[in-house]
């Protein structure tokens, strides 16, 4: 059974037009498809080729191409191979189809991607806030999000107090062996 599926994938799927098929190694296959054929491919892999486990959906923001790349990682327990199905969707308007009807765990991954990248999945059961419940800014994992600027605007930082260290040293604490001394000693010990 398992061998025939691999052969079928290698020989038949690889020849289908519109599917970029690459065998990366014995247990890894990469497929590149257009965004409108991806649900069909997933349905085929799940229904006909034993890829029943969706381990993750990852999202990559390719800001120069103005596209999001979605990677669906599928695992088969029968022939122990991982299929990574890659697809690309435009960044705007940022709407894509949910695969919740094919794989139920997709609901969590899609909700997470919606929160972190702002990509909306049509047909997903819940697109509410997930982890960042207090978040009021733009989606933080987008490449155009300036995390450092956000932090500088939103939070205050502690001032530097050199007198604290002095107070520690007066009490007999502080740095016992200075790093430059350690380095000098190492240099001296070298033959």
């Amino acid at each position: 059974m398992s061998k025939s599926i691999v052969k079928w994938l290698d020989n038949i799927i690889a020849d289908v037009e519109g599917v970029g098929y690459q065998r990366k190694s014995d247990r890894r296959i990469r497929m590149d498809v257009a965004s409108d054929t991806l649900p069909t491919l997933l349905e085929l892999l799940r229904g006909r080729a034993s890829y029943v486990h969706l381990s993750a959906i990852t999202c990559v923001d390719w800001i120069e191409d103005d596209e999001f790349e979605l990677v669906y990682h599928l695992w088969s327990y029968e022939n122990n191979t991982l299929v990574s199905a890659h697809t690309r969707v435009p960044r705007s308007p940022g709407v894509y189809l949910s695969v919740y009807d094919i794989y139920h765990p997709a609901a969590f991954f899609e909700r997470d991607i919606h929160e972190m990248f702002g990509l909306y999945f049509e047909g997903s059961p819940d697109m509410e806030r997930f982890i960042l419940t207090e978040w009021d800014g733009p989606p933080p994992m987008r490449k155009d999000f300036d995390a450092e600027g956000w932090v500088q605007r939103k939070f205050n930082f502690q001032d530097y107090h050199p007198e604290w260290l002095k107070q520690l040293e007066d009490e007999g604490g502080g740095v016992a062996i200075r790093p430059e001394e350690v380095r000098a000693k190492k240099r001296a010990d070298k033959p």
Partner: protein
Amino acid sequence: MTENTDIPVMLERDGDPKRTNPLAHVFDELVRFCRSRSLFMLHYCTGCGAIELPPAMTSRFDMERLGIQPMVTPRQADILLVTGYVSVKTLKRIILTYEQMSSPKYVVGICSCTVNGGMYWQSYATAKKLDEYLPVDLYIAGCMPRPEAVIEGMKKLMADIKSGKASNWQDYYRNYDYYLGNQQHLFGDNWQTPTDVVGEARNYALAGPGTTGEHTALLEQYQRPLEPITSHFRIGETVEPGDEQGDG
């Protein structure tokens, strides 16, 4: 259910709060000494610093010989240990925990992350200065501090309690408006906790000019009255074979 009116509540402090007993200060000193020798700590393990606490508490370094013990509930704890980075979502829970603790209470921030954000200084999700949101008595810096450093810090805290210097919990009541303002800056204007801090401050006679202000006014504006939680129990009920639907 117990009616709310059945619970005796002391609304007003009767009599003069000024103390007349000449031995009051001696007694205070004794109380502070005893307090510093029996500390129960609630370690809110938010980050990696928590990993240094088991060796500090167990036989290798044995913090219990100093009278410090872990406690399981905030209502019986004296010290709130915040070990490591504090994300904005976690900070809400820390504030809820802190307000449940009974006074006097002390907050200890362990690791660099509580001081200044640490290695997560440019993360959008973590709060940087813990002392903006809670009155921190002591910071133990380090990434992570070794158990020796934790014990050294605890000894400092004990000395501060004994000398009466560790009184930052009063600062939370005196300057509640400042702390609440910073909390509202992160959580939004409708942020509220079930604890009536202003009422507690008045009860402890700690209310000052900084207790109320524009932020507490905002709190009152959004405050919803607390509702009793209703629980439903199904005891001795038999489910008919016909209607086995729902949560069965």
